[in-house]
């Protein structure tokens, strides 16, 4: 990003937060996405675990911690996987938090390794997608959705984000072209990413004229549900170095659930409460961030995350969009592998997409185009729209090992 | 002698020399039944409910349950039916002598008068005029008042109600007294819904046919049909009510044997 570069090691602010100095993330893997699969989620978890072992050179018994985010393992939870996949663990976590899975899994795994509860934690987000998976999952997503959303016909969060998009546009003067610019840039990024399900360029005309889903949301404002998996390993820095694995450092993380319950509509997320700590603990400022992986279930949420994470003031998102370019070679690289809007949303794997891409960018193991001179990246988690707003918000600032 | 005449009768029936005439209306839910003022107890109309019809309720058979009053459709009145006959011996359907249930019939044609005047009352003069042509009414005979009322297939016309009540023909009080005291008849039969005229309440005594007939241990028949197929004399009618314990009457299959 074009700005004066500050000294990278600004003194970290102290306080009641974790210092992740000695635990790292490594071995970013992706199980290729497919629109529909006849396999169960267990298959995708198994493939991800296999790839993690391949990528890291570890053997299965070396992995003594497992964190799984999935919606389609039912009736199993993570425990069923232990016998299914033949792993014996000291630490186990099942995180059904959708788009926040990755950030939350990262935080739990870092704490487990730091605390000595596990040595190598595999963090995996995986979901299958059968022809009727999405429709079936809607009916049983949450009590509030069942009681107060689905009876109204929207079927999923489309209506809630249509409201938010309309409200945001009206309140702050954002236009559909603004959102379109983000989607088009992300599609450009995706064209270089081999696992993206969308392979064709997106024009502004196509974006604007696309099929109406829930006015003002149109087809390219929505993610495409699919099957797939993402994963990474968390271990001590010493272990990573002993294995000769390229790794990224987690400089800070944050997590918040049910922030701002008094807001009549979700115009801001929990990041507003946590950003000072996030940057303070990381020892960086927003200007130091070289790329941002937002959780882009809808373009309006990317804009809100950009505002809430301090890149511009609330309400100035549209103006920010107009000022910047978002491709990997642009002034504000955003969702550098395409984001779930262009890659696809493989259930909980979408909550890992940004983290996995961040690790790739910061270890030089890119599958998509590399952001030039990337030292610090920001991955954002968001999700679990159990009623009218995403309850979970989270973020992680990651840095290159030598930054 | 009796055995021979019975055997002759059987042979005549088989050969058609003696014809059987059906004097009963069909029992169906549409058939009107007598209606009393709303505060009083009512006679049930005929109702029928299927039990099964070659279906899952009974694969190889069809049958029904039905319900009705003792005085629904073509029916027989026993003496116990009226207050005047309540204490007589053998006055119920199960105790009355069965020999009373088959007898000769005298059919008095009032069809012309009844069509002109629905409230027509059969008088003593009328009976005597009939006897002048057809002979004296024998003892223990049935007297049937033919009015062709049974041809009124529309229930509205059959009941013939207006704001003052029902208007159907029947016997005058004196005529009933005459038939009992002077002719010793076994009973009176009508094609209308009651043996008494529709406006019988206003005669003196009210409902004289019921009052006198049952008071004298005689019987009544109502809703008869096909009386126009009977000769004025000579028909033998069969009108047996069900043997209901302490019954006041019952629907019957009334039949007449007539020369073929």
């Amino acid at each position: 990003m074009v700005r004066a570069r500050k000294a990278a090691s600004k003194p970290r602010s102290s306080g009641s937060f974790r210092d992740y100095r000695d635990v790292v993330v490594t071995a970013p893997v992706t199980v290729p996405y497919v629109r529909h699969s006849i396999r169960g989620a267990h298959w995708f978890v198994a493939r991800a675990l296999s790839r993690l072992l391949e990528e890291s050179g570890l053997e299965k018994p070396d992995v003594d911690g497992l964190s799984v985010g999935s919606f389609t393992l039912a009736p199993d939870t993570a425990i069923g996987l232990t016998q299914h996949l033949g792993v014996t663990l000291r630490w186990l976590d099942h995180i059904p938090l959708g788009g926040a899975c990755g950030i939350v899994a990262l935080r739990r795994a870092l704490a487990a390794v730091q605390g000595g509860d596990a040595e190598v934690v595999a963090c995996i987000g995986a979901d299958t997608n059968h022809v009727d998976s999405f429709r079936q999952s809607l009916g049983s997503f949450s009590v509030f959705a069942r009681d107060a959303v689905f009876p109204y016909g929207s079927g999923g969060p489309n209506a809630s984000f249509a409201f938010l998009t309309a409200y945001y546009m009206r309140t702050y003067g954002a236009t559909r072209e603004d959102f379109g610019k983000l989607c088009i840039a992300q599609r450009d990024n995706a064209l270089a990413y081999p696992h993206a399900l969308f392979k064709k360029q997106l024009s502004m005309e196509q974006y604007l004229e696309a099929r109406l889903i829930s006015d003002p949301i149109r087809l390219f404002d929505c993610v495409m549900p699919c099957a797939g998996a993402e994963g990474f390993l968390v271990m001590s820095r010493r272990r990573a170095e002993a294995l000769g694995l390229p790794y990224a450092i987690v400089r800070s993380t944050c997590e918040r659930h049910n922030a701002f319950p008094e807001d009549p509509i979700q115009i801001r997320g929990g990041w507003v409460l946590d950003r000072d700590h996030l940057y303070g603990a990381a020892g960086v400022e927003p200007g130091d961030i070289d790329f941002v992986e937002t959780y882009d279930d809808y373009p309006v949420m990317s804009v809100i995350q950009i505002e809430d994470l301090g890149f511009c003031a609330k309400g100035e998102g549209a103006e920010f969009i107009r000022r910047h370019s978002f491709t990997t070679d642009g002034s504000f690289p955003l969702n550098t592998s395409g984001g779930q809007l262009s890659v696809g949303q493989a259930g909980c794997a979408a909550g890992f997409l940004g983290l996995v891409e961040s690790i790739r960018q910061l270890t030089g193991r890119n599958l998509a185009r590399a952001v030039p001179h990337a030292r610090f990246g920001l991955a954002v988690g968001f999700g679990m729209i159990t009623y009218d707003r995403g309850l979970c918000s989270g973020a992680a600032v990651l840095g290159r090992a030598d930054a | 002698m009796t055995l021979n005449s019975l055997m002759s009768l059987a042979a005549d029936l088989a050969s058609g020399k003696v014809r059987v005439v059906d004097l009963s209306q069909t029992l169906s839910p549409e058939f009107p039944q007598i209606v009393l003022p709303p505060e009083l107890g009512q006679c049930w109309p005929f109702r029928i409910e299927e039990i099964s019809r070659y279906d899952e309720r009974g694969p190889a058979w069809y049958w029904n349950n039905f319900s009705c009053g003792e005085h629904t459709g073509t029916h027989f009145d026993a003496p116990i039916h009226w207050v005047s006959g309540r204490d007589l011996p053998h006055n119920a359907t199960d105790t009355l002598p069965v020999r009373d249930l088959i007898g000769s019939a005298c059919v008095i044609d009032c069809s012309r008068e009844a069509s002109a005047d629905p409230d027509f009352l059969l008088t003593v003069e009328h009976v005597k005029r009939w006897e002048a042509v057809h002979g004296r009414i024998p003892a223990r005979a049935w007297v049937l008042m033919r009015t062709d009322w049974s041809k009124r297939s529309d229930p509205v016309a059959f009941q013939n109600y207006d704001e003052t009540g029902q208007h159907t023909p029947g016997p005058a009080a004196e005529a009933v007294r005459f038939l009992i005291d002077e002719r010793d008849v076994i009973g009176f039969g009508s094609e209308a819904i009651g043996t008494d005229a529709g406006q019988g309440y206003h005669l003196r005594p009210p409902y004289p046919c019921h009052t006198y007939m049952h008071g004298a241990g005689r019987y009544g028949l109502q809703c008869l049909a096909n009386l126009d197929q009977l000769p004025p004399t000579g028909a033998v009618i069969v009108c047996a009510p069900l043997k209901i314990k302490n019954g006041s009457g019952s629907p019957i299959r009334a039949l007449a044997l007539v020369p073929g």
Partner: protein
Amino acid sequence: MTAPLARPRRKNPVLRTPQPLLPPWARSRAALGLTAAAALGRFELQVCERCAAVQYPPREACHRCLCDALVWREQSGAGALLATTIVHHSHDLYFRERVPWRLGLVQLDAGPTVLAHLVAGCAPAPSRVWIGARLDKSGQGVLLAFPTEEVPNMADDRELREMSCDPKYRKVLVTDGKTRVGQATVRALIDAGADLVWVGYAEPWKKFPGFAELEALPQATLVPLDVTDSRSVKEVAAEIGGKVDILVNTAEMHRAHGIASRSGVDVARSEMDVNYFGLLRLAQEFGPVMRSRGADGPASATAWVNVLSIYALTNYPPQGTFSASKAAAFSLSQCLRAEMRAGGVRVINVFPGPLDDEWNQSVPPPKLSPEALAKSIVKALQDGVEDAYPGDVAQEWLARFRESPKTLERELSAAGG
């Protein structure tokens, strides 16, 4: 601006009748409190007894202070429309065939933000609206945002008509048109826009007062119907059942006897034969075909109305056997409601207090006039409620019953002694 509903064209008989689909039906137990209130035409939300916080969506504990003493209280529904959307694509089969469908996000003045169906005529956001509750096609409570100003033809709004059982342009069977209640109902339905009203009457040989006037109404067709005669019911259903959109069962046998005041069971039996078995016969013959026509175009089969009595809720000893027969009918109507649900046909029970008729001659006022009862039937259809308690006596007895059924029983036994 709502365009007035156009008179539906005659149905093309060679086309397949669409199967009735239902909007999502599942609700938690707490959420059913909203349905229970909507069944009476009320919008209620849970309110915390300790801190007065209003809750939505419905829940098990106060979102502010965790107290579990949450009581359902009627709400004004006033609120601010934050945003609207028109759904063009839905995964739900019911809505899929009804898009585009308007929705609104409203912040109630009472606090919570609610998602609601948006009735046409609401000014674009930001604007004021008011939230009401209705039963949707699956019979569950849902919220609707209504405009604050009177809007012409509001009842014709597609989304609102889907929630109501409006008689406009529909064909109705009134099972007994001989009584004053029956005749008033026929007239009220015609005034409300019914296309055709079949008027049932038993014992055709007994002309009843008002017969000629009824026959003279162009929208009325008299049809012999005796609900005590299975075959009569079957024949009428065979003839017109496939066209009946609304069935209003006014057939009633009403006498004023307790147990000791009348010897023999014949009167009570007659009451049961009309009031309970009559309903059963009608339900068996008309129910299935009405249920299959729940989505049969704009004039679809939509409602079954039972004229019960407040005595169905609690026995009125001076009319004890009549009360029992109405209670039996009430219980059966709940069975009918469950069976008709799949077709999206609403079973509506009307529980009037004593009517101003001959058998209630000795009952002191207030008594409900047949015209008032007829009006309440039409209103229940237009509002799409499930239970209506017209008149002062019905309202008072309902309040007493809900507070304590046993206390009401004692209060009424004083009348029967």
